[in-house]
C-alpha cells in the first residue's frame, strides 16, 4: 500500500503535519509543570481566565439573540438580495480582526457615528470597557453561529412548518416549537464554535477594548502581555487555551457523530 503513495506527496504531507503539531508539543515540553498548580491559581491567570470565560459567554449569548433570527431570515425569510446579505454576514470571517476593531471604534467609539449618541443619550461608552470586549468578540464570532444555524435551517424540512400552519400556529409559535427544536443540534454546534472563537479573540479586542488587567485583559491578551515579562506565565495561559480548544473540538465531534447516528 505504502508503495502506492509517491514520496513527492508523502514528504510534504509529513512536514505539514509536523508543522501543525510540533509547536503544540513545544508548549507541552516547555511548560513549567512543577509550578503549574500555583501558576494556574494565581490572581493574574485567574483574573484573565474568569474575564475570558465571562466575556466569551456573554458574546455567545449576544450572538444567539441576534444571530439565530438572522440565520432564520437568511434561510426562510423571502428577502431580496439574500446572496448579498449572506456575503455581508460572512465578511467578519475573512476580515483581519484588527480591522474589525478599528471599524468598531469608528462606529461605537466616543466620537463614532453611533457611539457619540450612546454617550450623549444614555451615558454609555463601550470602548476600553468589559462591555467593549463582549462587543468585539461578538462581532468577530457571530458569523460562525449564523452560518452553522442557517445551514441547519436549510437542511430542515420546511413541510413541518406547513404542518404547523395548518394546525393554526403563527410563524413565531412555529419557530419556537417546531423549527428551533429541530435545528437545536446546529444551534449548539454553532454556539460552541462561536464561543471558542470569542475566547481566542485578540485583534479586535485589543484594538477596540484595549488592554486593562481585570477589565479588558482576556486570556489571549494576557498571553501576549506575559510573553515579554514572564514567559512561563505565557506558557501556562497558552496551555489553558489549548486545553479549551481541544475540549471544544472533542465536544463538537461527539455531537456531530452522535447526531449522524
Amino acid at each position: 500500500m505504502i508503495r502506492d503513495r509517491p514520496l513527492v506527496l508523502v514528504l510534504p504531507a509529513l512536514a505539514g503535519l509536523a508543522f501543525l503539531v510540533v509547536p503544540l508539543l513545544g508548549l507541552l515540553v516547555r511548560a513549567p509543570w512543577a509550578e503549574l498548580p500555583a501558576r494556574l491559581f494565581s490572581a493574574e491567570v485567574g483574573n484573565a481566565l474568569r474575564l475570558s470565560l465571562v466575556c466569551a459567554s456573554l458574546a455567545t449569548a449576544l450572538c444567539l439573540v441576534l444571530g439565530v433570527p438572522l440565520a432564520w431570515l437568511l434561510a426562510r425569510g423571502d428577502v431580496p438580495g439574500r446572496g448579498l446579505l449572506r456575503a455581508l454576514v460572512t465578511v467578519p470571517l475573512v476580515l483581519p480582526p484588527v480591522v474589525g476593531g478599528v471599524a468598531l471604534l469608528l462606529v461605537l467609539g466616543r466620537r463614532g457615528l453611533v457611539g457619540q449618541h450612546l454617550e450623549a443619550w444614555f451615558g454609555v461608552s463601550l470602548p476600553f470597557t468589559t462591555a467593549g470586549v463582549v462587543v468585539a468578540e461578538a462581532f468577530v464570532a457571530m458569523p460562525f453561529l449564523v452560518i452553522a444555524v442557517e445551514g441547519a435551517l436549510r437542511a430542515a424540512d420546511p413541510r413541518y412548518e406547513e404542518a404547523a400552519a395548518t394546525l393554526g400556529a403563527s410563524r413565531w409559535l412555529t419557530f419556537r416549537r417546531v423549527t428551533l427544536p429541530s435545528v437545536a443540534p446546529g444551534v449548539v454546534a454553532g454556539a460552541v464554535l462561536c464561543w471558542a472563537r470569542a475566547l481566542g479573540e485578540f485583534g479586535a479586542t485589543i484594538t477596540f477594548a484595549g488592554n486593562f488587567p481585570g477589565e479588558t485583559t482576556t486570556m489571549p491578551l494576557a498571553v501576549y502581555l506575559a510573553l515579554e515579562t514572564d514567559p512561563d506565565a505565557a506558557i501556562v495561559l497558552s496551555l489553558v487555551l489549548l486545553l479549551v480548544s481541544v475540549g471544544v473540538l472533542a465536544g463538537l465531534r461527539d455531537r456531530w457523530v452522535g447526531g449522524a447516528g
Partner: protein
Amino acid sequence: MSLRAELRVVRDRFRLDVDLDVAPGEVVALLGPNGAGKTTALRALAGLTPGGRVRVDGAAWDGLPVRRRPVGVVFQDYLLFPTMSALENVAFGLRARGVRRAAARAEAARWLERVGLAAHAESRPRALSGGQAQRVALARALATGPRLLLLDEPLAALDAGTRVHVRAELSRHLGEFTGHTVLVTHDPLDAMVLADRLVILERGRVVQEGTPAEVARTPRTDYVAHLVGLNLYRGVAEGGTVRLDGGGVLTVAEPADGPVHVAFPPAAVSLFPQAPAGSPRNTWPVTVAGVEQHAHTTRVRLDGAPPVLADITTATLADLRLRPGDALWAVLKATEVRTYPITGAGGG
C-alpha cells in the same frame, strides 16, 4: 351548507383547473396518476398553494392564511413533530388556537384514546409504528375540530399487512366526521373503500366523477379502465354493433347509437387455438403480447383488432402453453359487454 372549490393553479407548464363540490359528511377521493395534480389540489384547498376560490359553509376562504382556515391535514408521511410526544403533537393545534395547556392536553388525550393510542401518549413519533403514526396524525388533524379534513395518500406509507387494518379504522373515523373530507390517493382500493364519491384527475383536470360503483362499472378513460381492471374502447354504435375507433367491430347486447364507450372484464374473453366453429360474432384473431400471473388467474395481453386483455385459468394456460407471438382466437360473450354514451367532463 357545503364546500365549493374552484381551484386554479398555474406552475411552470402545469395547469390545475378543478371544480370540486363536497357535501357535509361526504368523503371525496381525488384519484389519479402521478403528476395529475392531486396533491396540488389538496394544497390549494389548505391554502398552502395559492390559486382559486374556496367557499365552505357559505364563508369565503379566499385570502385567508393557512393558519386561519379551519382545516385538518394528514400529510403523506404524517409530518409528526419529532421533538414532541404523541400527546404534544395532538395538543399542538389546540394550543396554537389559544386553548389552555391543561385543557389542550386533556382534549388531546381523549383523541388519542379515540384512535386507540392512549398507551402511547408519551411516545415520540420515532418510537411509533407506521400505523400508529398515521393514527396520531389523524387525531392531530381532527383535534382542532376542522370543517375540512384533507388526507394526502393516508395509507401509502404503510405495509400491506398494516394497511388493511388502518384502512378499516380510517373508514370508521371518516364515517364519524361531520365536516367535509377530501382525500388524495393513487390506490383505487383505498378510494373505493374510503370515499363516497370519486373524482378522477388527469393532467390537472377532472376526467370523470361518480360513486365508486359508477366509476368501476363505466370507466371513461384508459387510466380509469386500467385501475378498475376493464377492457375499454371508444367507438360508434349502430344498433347492435359498435365500430371501434382503433379498428375492429363488436356485437353488443344493448343496442345503442352514436359515440359510445365499450367496456368488458378480461374474464369475459376466452382464448382458443383455432377459430371456434359456429360462433361468428365477436371472434377475432389475436397474438400473445405478454402473460402476467395474478393471484388466481393469468392475465394475457393480446394484440389484434382490437387489442384485449383476457383472464384465463391456470388449466387453460397449461392447455394453450402460451408464448409471446403465439396466434390465437379471442371470443367475447356479448352479454358481458357494457356500452354507454361518451358524454361528460373530458370523457371524449
